[in-house]
């Protein structure tokens, strides 16, 4: 259970709200959960639309999501703290962003208060949604620290709380040690459900090559962390684009979802991505996108920058393990875009 390279630090989880799902059986395995009835194809247009320019604005009320895909996103919400939460119009956009996805890996929570994320998730759930979260400790070498967060839709996703932790950081090469957690989809029978590690990262822009090298080791350590899990998705703000991913290439089959476009709000850099290996993560549906804050929500650049200097990036995965039989064929098992 402990990856090579150092111990995993465990992370305390917030108390589950009354509406949250049951997470884990006493035996330490995921508790079987009933499949959630959702309307297939409602978001088909979303998945098929131009990935770069975003998608139609979210409807009012909990979103109906497709049964045949889970959408995993990464979003650096620049300086997500008290001043941002005080701006109702910004919170409104952020909540609409989150409701589009099944899990959002958030970077850059920078707040003295411990109530930022609980308040934010309450705002997300104000329409009847049932999101919950796991949050990491404050990470960073100076007294300016950041926290990672996974916000997830409990109707469709569950987390194994015993797996939430801070990844090994040998030789202290990574400024903000990544946070990981193991999730399982709830839209298929539990014995078939897609399970996977997520590893959330925000690199230090001044030490990118060293950190990417170290993250390659983190990825491999997570691949080896437990024999029953072959799916590792490293996602976040890497401060680097695919041309700089050479260190990852030592991982057999490695690939990344986002390429050939920009991911920051100014549309000038490709810094955010989701990285995973194939054929292990054959659940990847070869569908990905960048939710452009300006075009999606009709915001001028200055107002989009109030939300964040990064756009969310996402990829779609089939909700059942690829080795499982008896489910409809996957939409595609094409290689990860290079």
């Amino acid at each position: 259970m402990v990856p090579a390279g150092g111990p995993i630090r465990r992370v305390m989880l917030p108390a589950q709200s009354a509406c949250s799902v049951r997470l884990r059986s006493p035996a330490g395995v995921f508790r079987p959960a009933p499949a959630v009835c959702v309307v297939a194809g409602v978001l088909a247009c979303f998945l098929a639309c131009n990935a770069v320019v975003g998608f139609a604005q979210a409807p009012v009320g909990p979103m109906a999501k497709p049964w045949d895909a889970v959408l995993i996103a990464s979003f650096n919400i620049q300086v997500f703290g008290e001043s941002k939460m005080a701006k109702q119009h910004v919170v409104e956009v952020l909540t609409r962003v989150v409701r589009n996805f099944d899990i959002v890996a958030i970077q850059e929570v920078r707040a003295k208060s411990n109530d930022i994320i609980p308040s934010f998730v309450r705002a997300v759930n104000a329409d009847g949604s049932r999101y919950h979260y796991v949050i990491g400790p404050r990470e960073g070498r100076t007294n300016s620290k950041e926290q990672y967060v996974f916000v997830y839709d409990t109707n469709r996703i569950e987390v194994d709380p015993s797996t939430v932790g801070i990844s090994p950081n040998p030789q202290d090469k990574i400024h903000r040690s990544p946070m990981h957690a193991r999730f399982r989809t709830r839209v298929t029978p539990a014995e078939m459900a897609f399970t996977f590690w997520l590893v959330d990262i925000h690199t230090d822009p001044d030490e990118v090559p060293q950190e990417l090298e170290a993250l390659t080791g983190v990825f491999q350590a997570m691949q080896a962390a437990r024999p029953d899990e072959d799916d590792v998705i490293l996602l976040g703000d890497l401060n680097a684009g695919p041309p700089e991913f050479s260190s990852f290439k030592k991982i057999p089959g490695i690939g990344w979802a986002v390429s050939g476009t920009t991911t920051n709000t100014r549309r000038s850099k490709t810094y955010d991505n989701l990285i995973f290996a194939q054929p292990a993560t054959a659940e990847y549906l070869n569908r990905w996108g960048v939710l452009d804050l300006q075009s999606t929500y009709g915001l001028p650049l200055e107002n989009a920058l109030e939300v964040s200097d990064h756009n969310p990036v996402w990829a779609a995965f089939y909700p059942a393990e690829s080795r499982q039989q008896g489910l409809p064929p996957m939409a595609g098992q094409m290689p990860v875009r290079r």
Partner: protein
Amino acid sequence: MSDSSSPDIGTLVGQLAAGDATLRAEAAERLCRAGSDAAVAAVPLVRACGDDDDQVREWAVAGLEELGPPPQGSIPQLVELAGSRHPLVAYWAITLLGRSGKDAATASKVLAECLGSAADPSVRQRAAWALGRLGSEAATARKALEKAAAEPDPRLARLAREALDSIGV
């Protein structure tokens, strides 16, 4: 959405000195949103890292992360701020000097001092990193780097070794 008007950089720099912390935080946030256009505000943003208000500090840090190298004319002031007793101010002054590379050759002495005697480990580590970015211009810091390379802090020792490698023989 509010906030459609954009004060110029000079106005925002002035606002960083306001008595009201809310105004200072707003100025730091707007400078942060200005991206590399705020490079001329590098020194005021480094000073803002020592602000009493945590939101001012956080926005200043976020702005500095995205700023890139500072204008060459700001190097003398950054050299001065590298010796600040406030660790976050020193850390970011040193970071900007490191980003300046060989243009910050005059910072070699103060960086060696920070490496040798700063109380905060993150400041010492960043000084080793910055000396590595100066390359051969950091030759005068060789002795301090050799000492740091033998210290028990693994990150400090590694960065010092890398800096020595970048200086060359």
